[in-house]
C-alpha cells in the first residue's frame, strides 16, 4: 500500500471508532435525559475532536517512521482517488446540512441540530473514506 492508502485506512478506522463512541455515548443517553447533557455534549464533542486529532497525528508519525522513504509521497493516482472520494462524500454532507437546516427551521433543540450536523460531517467522511479504499483496491 502507498502511504496515502495506509493513511486513508487509518483515518477511516479512527473516524468510525472515535466518533462512533461519541454518538453511542452522547446520543444514546440524550434520548433519555436531554437537559442533563446540554452542557456535557459540548465538552464531549470538543474532547472527541481533540482525541481524534491526537490519534491521527500519532498514527501518521508511526506510519512515517515505518516507511520513511514513502512517507508523505502523493502522486496523481492518490490525488484522483482523493478527489473522487471527496466528491461522493459531498453528497452525504449536503444531505446532512439539509437535515440540520430542517431541524433549525422547526426550532428543534440545538442539541439535535448540532449533532445532526456533526453526524452529517462524520458520515460524509466515512463514505468518502470507504469510496477511496475501494478505488485503491479495485482501480480508478
Amino acid at each position, binding site marked *: *500500500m*502507498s*502511504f*496515502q*492508502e495506509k493513511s486513508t485506512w487509518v483515518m477511516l478506522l479512527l473516524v468510525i471508532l472515535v466518533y462512533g463512541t461519541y454518538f453511542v455515548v452522547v446520543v444514546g443517553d440524550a434520548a433519555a435525559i436531554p437537559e442533563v447533557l446540554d452542557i456535557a455534549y459540548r465538552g464531549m464533542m470538543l474532547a472527541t475532536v481533540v482525541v481524534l486529532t491526537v490519534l491521527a497525528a500519532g498514527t501518521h508519525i508511526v506510519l512515517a517512521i515505518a516507511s520513511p522513504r*514513502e512517507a508523505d*509521497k502523493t*502522486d*496523481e*493516482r*492518490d490525488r484522483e482517488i482523493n478527489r473522487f472520494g471527496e466528491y461522493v462524500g459531498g453528497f452525504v454532507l449536503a444531505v446532512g446540512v439539509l437535515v440540520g437546516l430542517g431541524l433549525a427551521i422547526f426550532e428543534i433543540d440545538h442539541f439535535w441540530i448540532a449533532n445532526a450536523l456533526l453526524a452529517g460531517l462524520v458520515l460524509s467522511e466515512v463514505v468518502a473514506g470507504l469510496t477511496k479504499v475501494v478505488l485503491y483496491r*479495485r*482501480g*480508478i
Partner: protein
Amino acid sequence: MTQADLADRIGVTRQTVIAIEQGRYSPSLEVAFKIARVFGRSVDDVFGYPPD
C-alpha cells in the same frame, strides 16, 4: 530496473506503477510519456489499448 526505480524516475509511487501494470489505473498523458521516455520508446510501444 525495479518498479521502485521506475516510480522514482517518473514521479509516482511504486504502488501506482503496479496499478498501471495490472490495469487498475490509467496514467495521465504526462506520466505515460514519461514512462515511454524512460524506456526510450514511443507511447504506442509501451502501452496497449484493446480494439473495439
